[in-house]
C-alpha cells in the first residue's frame, strides 16, 4: 500500500520538476494533465482507505475537470496561438533545477507538524513543494500561458495539502474551488489568445506598458 503512495508521491515530484523545465508549452500542458491524473488517483486511494464517499466524488471531479477539461482548454488555446510555442525561461535551466530542488527542501522544512490523518507526513511537504514550484514557474517563465500553468500547479499543491492534512476541504468548498479554477483557466485561455492577437506574441516583456 505505502509503496504505491510513495510511487505516486515520486510521480508528483517528477511531473512538477519536469513541468518546470520543459522546452515546449504543450508538453507542460501534458505534464499538468498527468499530475492531475495522479492526484485524482491519490484522492481515490485516500477515499477508499478512509471510507469517505465525498472523496470519491472529488476524485471524479478532479479527473473530469483537472485531468481532462483544463488540459483540453489549454491545448485548444495553444492551438490558436501555435502549438510549437516555446516556454522561454528567464534564467538558465541548470539554475532553475537548483531552484526546484531548493523549493522541495523548503517545502520539507517549513511543513508545520500537523499529524495528518492518512498517508505519511511527507505528502504535506510535497504539497507545499508543489505550491512553491508553481510560484517558481510563474516567476521564471516568460510566456503568459506558462504563468497560467504555474497557477494550476499551485492549485494542485493546495489540493494535495488539503487532502493530506484533512482529507480535503468540505465538499461544497471543494466544488467551489473547482469551479473557480475552471473559470480561471477559461479566462487565462481567453486572455492568452486575445493577447496573442493584439501583441502578436504572448511574451511577458510585451506586457509592460502600465508602470509607475
Amino acid at each position, binding site marked *: 500500500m505505502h509503496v504505491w503512495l510513495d510511487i505516486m508521491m515520486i510521480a508528483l515530484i517528477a511531473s512538477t520538476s519536469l513541468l518546470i523545465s520543459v522546452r515546449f508549452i504543450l508538453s507542460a500542458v501534458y505534464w499538468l494533465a498527468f499530475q492531475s491524473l495522479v492526484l485524482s488517483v491519490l484522492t481515490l486511494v485516500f477515499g477508499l482507505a478512509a471510507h469517505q464517499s465525498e472523496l470519491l466524488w472529488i476524485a471524479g471531479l478532479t479527473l473530469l475537470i483537472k485531468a481532462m477539461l483544463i488540459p483540453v482548454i489549454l491545448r485548444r488555446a495553444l492551438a490558436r496561438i501555435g502549438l510549437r510555442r516555446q516556454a522561454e525561461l528567464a534564467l538558465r535551466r541548470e539554475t532553475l533545477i537548483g531552484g526546484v530542488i531548493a523549493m522541495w527542501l523548503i517545502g520539507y522544512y517549513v511543513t*508545520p507538524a*500537523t*499529524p*495528518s490523518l492518512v498517508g505519511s507526513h511527507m505528502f504535506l511537504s510535497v504539497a*507545499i513543494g508543489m*505550491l512553491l514550484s*508553481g*510560484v517558481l514557474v*510563474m516567476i521564471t517563465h516568460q510566456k*503568459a500561458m506558462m*504563468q*497560467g500553468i*504555474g*497557477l494550476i500547479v*499551485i*492549485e494542485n499543491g*493546495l489540493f494535495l*495539502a*488539503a487532502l493530506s*492534512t*484533512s*482529507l480535503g*476541504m*468540505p465538499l*461544497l*468548498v471543494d466544488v*467551489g*474551488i473547482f*469551479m*473557480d479554477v475552471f*473559470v*480561471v483557466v477559461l*479566462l*487565462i485561455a481567453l*486572455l492568452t489568445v*486575445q*493577447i496573442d492577437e*493584439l*501583441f502578436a506574441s504572448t511574451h511577458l516583456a510585451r*506586457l509592460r*506598458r*502600465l508602470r*509607475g
Partner: protein
Amino acid sequence: MSAIWPFMILAIPLVTAGASLVPLSTRRRLAIHIMGLLATSASVFALAATVTAGGAMETASGFFFVDPLSAVLLLVVTLVTLISGLHSIGYVRQDVAHGELSVRQERQYFAWFHAFTATMYLVLMVNNLGITWVAIEGTTVTSAFLVAIYRKAEALEAAWKYLILCSSGIAFALLGLIFLYSSAQDVYGPGSNRLDFTFLARTAHALPTPLLLTSFALIFVGYGTKVGLAPLHFWLPDAHSQAPSPVSALLSGALLNTALYGIMRIVILLLHTASEPFVVHLSLVFGLLSLAVAFPFLLLQQDIKRMLAFSSVEQMGILLFGIGVGTEASFFAVILQLFNHAMTKSTLFMTAGNLVQQYRTKQIPRIRGVLSASPFSGTVLLVAGLALVGAPPFAIFSSELAITAAGFAAGHPFTTALFLLLLAALFGATLYQLGRMVFGTPTAVRMTHPSRWTTWPLLLPLALATVLGVWMPHPLSELFQGAARVMDGRLL
C-alpha cells in the same frame, strides 16, 4: 421571513445577469438592469434593517451568517453598486456611441456587472470561511472580465496582471485556511462546520498558536493582495485605471472593502487570543507601509485614475492601521472611514470617468480648469476631494481624528505620530493632484455632460458623505457601533 433576504440578494443579481445577456431592445434591457439594481438594494436594506433590529442572524441551517459588520459592508456594496450601476447606463451608452464598445460587449458588461456584485454579496453573507474564499476568488474572475472589457492592449495587460497576481496571492490564503481547518479538526475532531466563522469564533483561542500565526500570515497576505496592501498592490492601479470608470468605482468602493472584510473576520478570530500582538503589529506595519508607498506614486502620478487608485491604497492603509490599533473606538472609526471612503472614492472615480470622456485623455496635466470648463464635475471633484483628504465638516475628518486618538490611547504614540505625518504628506499630494485639475485656466471650452445618468447619481454618495460628517441617523450609528462591537470580538 427574514430568512429569504440572503437568497434574494444572491438570486436577483444572477437572474439580472442572465437576463442582460438576452438580446432585447435597449429600453427593455435598461428596465431589467434598473429593476435588478433597485430590487437588490431593497432586499439588502431589508436585511440590514432586520440585522439592526435583531442582531446577528444565521439562516439556511448556518450557511448564511449576517451580523452588523457584514450588514454595514452589504450596505456599502449595495450603495456603490446602485450608484455605479446607474452611472454605467450613461457611461456605457457614451462608449457605445464613441464605438469603444460594441452592443454585444455592452450586454456582456451588464451581465458581468451583476455577476460581480453577486459574488461580493456572497462573500459578505456566508458563514463558512472556505466559501468566503471561493467567493472572493469569484470576485476576481468576474471583475477580471469587466477590466478586460475594452479589449485594448492596456486593458488586457491590466486584466492579466490582475488575474495572475490576485489568484496566486489568494492561493496562499487558501493554504492558510487549510491549516486552520486541519488544526480545528485535530482539536475538535472532524465535522462539516469546522470552517464556520460562528464555530471558530468560539473555539479559535484553543487552537495551537504557532499554527494560528502561520495561517494568519498566509491569509493576511492572500487577502491583502486583493485589498491592495503595499507591497502587494501593484495590480491595483493597472486594473483601476483600465476598467470602465463605473467598474473602477465598484472595485475601489466595494471590492477592496469586501477583501478587507475577509481579513477582518480572521482578525476577529485572533484578537483576544495569544496571537493578538502578532496581528496588531502586522496590521500597524502594513498600514503604515501602504501609506508610505502610496505617497511617491500619488505625488508624481500623471494619470487621473491611477492617482485615485493609489489614494485607495492609502485609504486601505488607514483602515488597516485602524484595525491594528485594535480598540473598539478605533474599530468604530474604521467602519466610519470605510463607509465614507467608499462613497467619496466611487464619486471621484465616476467623475474621473466623466472627465476622461469629456477631455478624451487621462493625463492630469491636460485636464485643467475643470471648475470653469464643466462646473458640475469641477464642484463634485472639489467637494469629494476635500471629503477624501479629511477636511471638515466631512466624516473622514472625524474618523481619522478618532483613529489617531485611539492610537495614542492604545499606547502607540510614535507609530501614530508617524501615521499623522504621512497623512499630512498624502493630504498635500492629493490636494496638489486634484487642485491642478480643478483650478486654473481651462484647456477646453465649456463642456456639457452627455447624459443625465452620469451626473445625478453622483449627488447621492456626496450627500451621504457630507451629512454623516455633521449628523448621523440613529439606526446607522447603532449599526456601526454593532459592527465595531463585532470587530471587538463581542456579540458572539
